[in-house]
């Protein structure tokens, strides 16, 4: 009997140990991706929740975005996600997205690296267009192409992205109502991450705590309208197996129509290594 229990314990330990987190904790940002890729042959599952405060109403917009992430090779990562939200009163599926990132530069040294990657995203969404902001992560149908550079030095990571985004009409005959000239924008971001705990590593099962701050900007190339958001977050990684990010996104400045720019986000993530 006790033998069986110990065997179960060992099995559980193996299962838990085989589910781990890759990459560098301090550059696993909540709202942008670093230039580093997932480990080749790994698969990750993520659930993003955003709880945004809708402007000029008492409503809360809840978006649920499950995502699967596949490390195709050391240089290529492909993610697929689905969009659900309650914005149209009923909670329903609104579309999906495919994201791919190709790392083309990697300069590694002991406890530091500089990496660059190119990425692209194609999204489909069936909800009504309700804001000038172009957001391919749960609001607009369209495509995005960009570059990301990430520098990691000891416990600090700094990352920046710049991308060009083009929105088209949403499906379900939901037109992009702001005109073709206003359907393009440039996104640029700056992210900082710092590993707070542990101060020194002793084993793979220590809890990691990271603090992050991200600055997210968009400028519409047609109208010239912009927004600037700040998103501080705290990330915890338990047993090197499960990751939780909790943060708050806050609009700092904007002159474009936005429905719900402020709110909380919670990310849950699990990774499986050496799957294929």
């Amino acid at each position: 009997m006790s033998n069986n229990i110990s065997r179960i314990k060992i099995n559980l330990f193996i299962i838990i140990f085989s589910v781990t987190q890759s990459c560098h904790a301090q550059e696993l940002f909540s709202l942008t991706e670093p230039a580093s890729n997932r480990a080749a042959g790994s698969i990750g599952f993520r659930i993003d929740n955003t709880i945004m405060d809708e402007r000029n109403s008492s409503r809360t917009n809840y978006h649920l975005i499950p995502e699967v992430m596949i490390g195709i090779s050391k240089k290529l990562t492909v993610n697929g996600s689905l969009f659900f939200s309650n914005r149209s009163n009923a909670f329903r599926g609104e579309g999906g997205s495919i994201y791919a990132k190709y790392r083309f530069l990697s300069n590694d040294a002991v406890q530091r690296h500089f990496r660059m990657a190119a990425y692209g995203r194609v999204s489909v969404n069936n909800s009504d267009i309700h804001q000038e902001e172009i957001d391919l992560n749960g609001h607009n149908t369209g495509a995005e192409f960009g570059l990301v550079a990430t520098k990691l030095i000891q416990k600090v990571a700094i990352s920046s992205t710049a991308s060009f985004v083009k929105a088209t009409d949403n499906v379900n005959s939901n037109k992009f109502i702001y005109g073709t000239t206003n359907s393009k924008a440039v996104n640029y971001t700056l992210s900082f991450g710092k590993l707070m705990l542990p101060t020194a590593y002793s084993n793979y099962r220590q809890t990691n705590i990271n603090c992050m701050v991200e600055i997210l900007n968009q400028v519409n190339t047609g109208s010239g309208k912009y927004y600037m958001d700040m998103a501080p977050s705290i990330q915890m990684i338990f047993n090197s197996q499960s990751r939780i990010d909790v943060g708050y996104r806050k609009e700092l400045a904007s002159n474009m129509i936005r429905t719900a720019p402020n709110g909380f986000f919670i990310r849950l993530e699990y990774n499986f290594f050496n799957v294929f």
Partner: protein
Amino acid sequence: MKKLFLFAALVASITLNAQVTKVQLKASGLTCSMCSNAINKALKTLDFVENINADIKTYTFDISFKANSKVDFDKIKKKVEGAGFSITSFTAFVNFNHLVVKNMESVVIDDQSLVFVTTDERLLNGVMAVQLLDKGFVSKKEYKKTNLPALLPGTYHVNI
């Protein structure tokens, strides 16, 4: 026939004269335990690997091998790179049994050829640390210093 026999005897003598007992590699481009674990787990999938002893603080991995298995340095390198990182130093601990090596002359150990550079003719005996010098087995900075030409797969420049 006599020649063939002589050749067979020669090959046998070479394989018996040295054996890789352990590899110690240091990875770069990482700063956290999770990255280290990604490498650890990737290395564990190699069929010739017996055990890995990871030092998280120094990003160093001591790899021991299964008995009678063929150790493949390239496969080890590919696993580290697949996990998203680079090797900054790669040392193979080889048990030599009275083997004479000469500069730029290759020695076959476990189906892999080692080309000794900057080595005067010497007799190797006992366990010795052999440093790999090829691209991907040292840091980019180090590699630029030597700029050794790429060899056939399974052949490596080494220093002792």
